[in-house]
């Protein structure tokens, strides 16, 4: 291509060219910079996304694709398996966030106030975040082993003899498989939530606390009336990213329960449902319909959080 970036090395030769053409030629440099990443994005992001939407409205037949209208969506929304997977995903996500955010706030507050040792503690808390979900899932598969696993062994050591079955129990209970994977998620996600909350805490101006202290507020009072309200943007951010991560949960549940999310589909997430329908059952249209619904849900979550965030936070600044 003559538009190679190097051509810019020889600017406007002898005999001035029309300025419009010079400007046009200047643009080509930038277009040539953008072309490779643009092509990659169109090919590997845009085109497959388009295909997902298209596939959800068509049925594949040996003679070509046949328009199916909303048939696949009706199939999807009439499928108990899909609702089960969506229900699991939402339940696990809500349980995770309800536990991890208060826990992270308490730990971050303590890390923020402690005088010594906060750096090594941060490094330790953050460690699971660097470990792949697959490795964590394999590790916890044995930790949750009812007879000799680390967790039940520790419970027995402190005198609890009626130990739960954890991953072997598909029922919805505090000692069942869903509780187990929530413990796993909190253990592995806590570090990230702590680090982000800590950054939020450190951005609170200290004169707010000084003023409160002069007014005679106890440390606990200033935590309730200054710290928590100031962390609002942090919480919104964590809830938003945490919800999206929870919706796309896959690797740890797949490692523990296979694509079907055993025991008894109690651990099947939406992404695992798509994986199973598309990859194992080759029901690409149903997988595509699920992918479209998934896309709409994620977009709605992002939109709601973003809109709520913009409305309060940005109006406050103005």
């Amino acid at each position, binding site marked *: 291509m003559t538009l190679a*970036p190097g051509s*810019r*090395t020889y600017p406007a030769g002898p005999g001035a060219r029309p300025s419009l053409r010079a400007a046009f030629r200047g*643009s080509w*440099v*930038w*277009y040539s*910079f*953008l072309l*490779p*990443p*643009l092509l990659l*994005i169109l090919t*590997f*992001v845009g085109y*497959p*996304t388009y*295909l997902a939407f298209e596939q959800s409205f068509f049925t594949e037949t040996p003679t070509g694709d046949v328009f199916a209208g909303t048939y696949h969506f009706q199939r999807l929304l009439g499928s108990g398996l899909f609702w089960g997977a969506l229900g699991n995903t939402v339940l696990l996500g809500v349980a995770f966030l309800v536990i991890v955010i208060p826990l992270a706030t308490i*730990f971050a507050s*303590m890390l923020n106030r*402690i*005088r*010594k*040792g906060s750096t090594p*503690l941060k*490094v330790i*808390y*953050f*460690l*699971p*975040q*660097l*470990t*792949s*979900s697959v*490795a964590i899932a*394999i*590790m916890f*598969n*044995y*930790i949750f082993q009812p007879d*000799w696993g680390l967790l039940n*062994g*520790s419970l027995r050591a402190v005198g609890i003899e009626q130990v739960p079955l954890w991953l072997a129990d598909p029922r919805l209970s505090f000692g069942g498989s869903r509780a187990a994977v929530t413990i796993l998620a909190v*253990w592995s996600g*806590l*570090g*990230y939530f702590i*680090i*982000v909350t800590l950054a939020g805490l450190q951005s609170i101006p200290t004169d707010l606390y000084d003023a409160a202290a002069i007014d005679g507020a106890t440390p606990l009072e200033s935590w309730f009336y200054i710290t928590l309200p100031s962390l609002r943007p942090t919480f919104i951010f964590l809830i938003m*990213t945490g919800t999206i991560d929870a919706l796309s949960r*896959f*690797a740890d549940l*797949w*490692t523990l329960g296979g694509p079907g999310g055993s025991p008894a589909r109690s651990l099947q997430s939406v992404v695992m449902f798509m*994986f199973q329908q*598309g*990859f194992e059952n080759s029901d690409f249209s149903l997988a*595509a319909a699920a992918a479209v619904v*998934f896309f709409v849900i994620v977009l709605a979550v992002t939109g709601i959080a973003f809109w709520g965030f913009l409305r309060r936070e940005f109006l406050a600044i103005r």
Partner: protein
Amino acid sequence: MTAEASESIDVAPAAKKRFQLPTDWRSQLGMGVALLIGAVIMLAPFLWMVATSLSRKANVSLPRTPSFWPPDPSFFNYFIATANLPIFKLYVNSLVVVGLTTFGYLFFSSIAGYAFAKGRFPGKSALFILFLATLFIPFETRMIPLYLFMGKLDLTNTYWALILPFLAGGFGTFLMRQTISTIPDELIEAARIDGASEFRIFIQIVLPLCKPTLATLAILNVIWRWNDVLWPLLVTTDRNLFTVTQGLAMAGRSQGVYTGVALATTVMAILPVILAYLFLQRYVIRSVVSSGVKG
């Protein structure tokens, strides 16, 4: 008694001056203990895993009371694990895939970021919005069509399938555009007047000024790609192309009954990442905080 009491009264003020405890030492101690208990809970699974992986007996039976020291320390499980799984081959695969995607992602993100930050050309904002729009498309939405598309291109079971979809993205482009925008125009203008091409300006002036952001992006990309398992599960079924994480996932599901061997495999799979993290922890944590993106 009285002598002792009077003595302690005399000594007390001097002692107080020498070992001065913080006035809030009670709350400091309480918080320290709570945080230490938390740290023990975070570390215990790792330590238990290492101890169990070093015990040959763990494949048959484990004590009902968990032990953090193997009763029969040996590397037996590690030999079996390396015999079952070509772990060093998997390391090479992961290094190739993670290395190339990271290099490509940094290059394409920064060159596009440069164009969006400093370029003047028609359609700039429309193109930028197009790049940003990819941020709102979750990978899971397009994974099945992308897998079918890779099949049509005849790229499944190649390194390309693991690399190509992750070379360019909205997040990196956005981050690089933000960083490059802060570089003063005068610097770039001066180079232009000296006759440097835009590409040379990009390589010799812009990139060196973006080192911290490039490091952030590299760290995040390495974490994402190293730990990804969903996409490799779809496009690679050839054992010789497995990444570490995928190999671990497959092994974890097949050798599950042999606790010691499975945990030895897991230890080998995560050890390099953990060691790298311990050396780079400051940068890793800073990257995650500054970008607001989870590792």
